[in-house]
């Protein structure tokens, strides 16, 4: 039996928009193996953002089971979910989402602050920044860095707590194609070196093509799976 890091079983998510019920996910099931690189693609409104939010433990499914790294997280309370996000999920966002007031190092350190272990916090943050190639930019603020460099800081922040999965939501969306490719290369390299599962949500077929597997979402369910 393969080592599944993600097992999603008939996930449903229903949003109440005034009087109208919107079914974002209609019983979606999928599994992702440990160390796999998976691209999630689909047209806007297909439910892929909702899926990402649920897989990233940012949101609860209305029904269905979700097991992340051996833990049934679909039943957890908000604070427990925060703890799971902190330990098991690394996020990379389209718009980087760095704290503009703080240095690169402080930004990377942030997840460690919330995980409560104080030992070697600074060292781990430095190590993460070095591994994304920003060993010489630790004290710079985000405003003093280029877009590509900011996204590297965000990636360092995602890996600093050694998560089970990295969730990258349109990581190249705000970057030109050359820098975007560098970011994808970096993410793939980290996947190779650390064996961290990588999930990329993207519109870009060129990005999706570099994944080992692509999950197509359409109308809230998996459309077809293909390698």
């Amino acid at each position, binding site marked *: 039996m393969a080592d599944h890091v993600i097992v999603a079983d008939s996930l449903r998510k229903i949003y109440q928009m005034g009087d109208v019920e919107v079914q974002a996910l209609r019983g979606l099931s999928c599994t992702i193996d440990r160390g796999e690189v998976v691209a999630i693609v689909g047209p806007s409104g297909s439910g892929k953002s909702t899926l990402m*939010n649920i897989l*990233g433990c*940012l*949101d609860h499914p209305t029904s269905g089971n979700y097991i992340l790294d051996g833990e049934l997280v679909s039943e957890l309370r*908000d*604070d427990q979910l*925060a*703890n799971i*996000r*902190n*330990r098991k999920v690394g*996020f990379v*966002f389209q718009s980087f*989402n760095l*704290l503009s*007031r*703080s240095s690169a190092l402080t930004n990377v350190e*942030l*997840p460690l*602050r*919330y*995980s409560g272990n*104080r030992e070697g916090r600074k060292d781990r943050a430095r190590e993460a920044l070095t591994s994304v190639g920003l060993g010489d930019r630790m004290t710079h603020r985000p405003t003093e860095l280029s877009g590509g460099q900011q996204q590297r800081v965000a990636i360092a*922040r995602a890996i600093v*707590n050694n998560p089970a999965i990295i969730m990258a939501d349109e990581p190249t969306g705000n970057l030109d194609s050359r820098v975007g490719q560098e970011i994808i290369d970096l993410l793939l390299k980290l996947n190779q070196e650390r064996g961290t599962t990588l999930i990329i949500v993207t519109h870009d077929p060129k990005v999706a093509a570099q994944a080992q597997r692509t999950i197509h979402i359409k109308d809230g369910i998996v459309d077809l799976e293909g390698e």
Partner: protein
Amino acid sequence: MTFSQVFYEALESLNSNKLRSGLTILGIVIGVAAVIAMLAVGQGAQNTITGSISGIGTNVLFVFSGNQQEEIRNPRPLTIQDSQAIQDPFAAPAVVAVAPILQSSLEVAGGGEKTTTEVTGVTPSYADVRNYKVTEGEFITEEQILGRASVALIGPETADKLFGRREGLVGEAIRIAGQPFRIIGVLESKGGGSFGSQDDVILVPFTTAQARLIRRNNPNRVDLIFVQAASAEEVRTANDQVAQILRARHRTEIGKDDFTIFSQQDFIQTASTITGVLTVFLGGIAAISLLVGGIGIMNIMLVSVAERTREIGLRKALGARRRDILIQFLTESSLLSLIGGLIGILFGWLIALAVGQVATATGNSFTPSVGLSAILLATIFSTAVGLFFGIYPANRAAALEPVEALRYE
């Protein structure tokens, strides 16, 4: 997160919006400064009043005719005989000195000037009971009482008014209600009192006043009897003994005394009650401005939460729990109020100092006092204001859904 980190992050965030934080702090500064200044003024007033009451004399009882608590028909006036009876060491062993007085406001002329002042007919024991000392000359003697001598002691303020000096007045002539008197001494200054100045007085022998200055229907009548108890502990006993003697002499019904005995403590207590109310009143008005400052904090924290919605979403995505966000924003709001409180204490203290200076300059000796309790109260109160008005915005921040907050533009 550790406390120092939370603290540092809050400082950093407040620092990134200096003008806004500064103005919010200003609101609290004004509130706390007002509270501190008002409490200091109230406390100062209390100290001044109780101080001047203590200046009347130590362990003193005031005995006067009539009863404030109950309606008594035809109260008998106090007489010189009552005073002599109280002096009996067997009937009232707790009493060491008795000083009956006659008092009236009369015109006094001397040194080419005229003034109206309180003229008091006194016995030699008055000096001890009321703590009067002379800077020159001598106090009224027993011979002068017996001889109904036309002599007078003059208070320093009265001396200023009439002669423009306080020295070399012994032997000078004055006229009291048109009758000639010779000055035999000048009283030492007791400082300004709250019942009119204790320095603007003329003292004459009791018998002289009785016969020539202050005529009463009953020739033996006295206006007030000062009684000095042997010690502070015996004031109560002396009170009871004096009451016993007067009841027997006046043949009053039980519970219907036609006289009142007031102790210095009673006066201080009454005055304290009045100034206490004054202090609470002033402090209450000042507290309203602190409340307004608190609303300012709430306002600015709400703006801050709205502005940083994405940041809050990010922090939650990275593993911040509800509690972490709550603490972060509460720390910011309490820090605003704490800084405001500390600066406010300093300012309030300066204002109190200035009020004291102005009071002194206008001739009232009055020192506002900033008590430790006022400082503690203001610090605790301002921090509580920050916490209270920070709870709603912080709760709002903490309750944000990470998905919603991250999507917020």
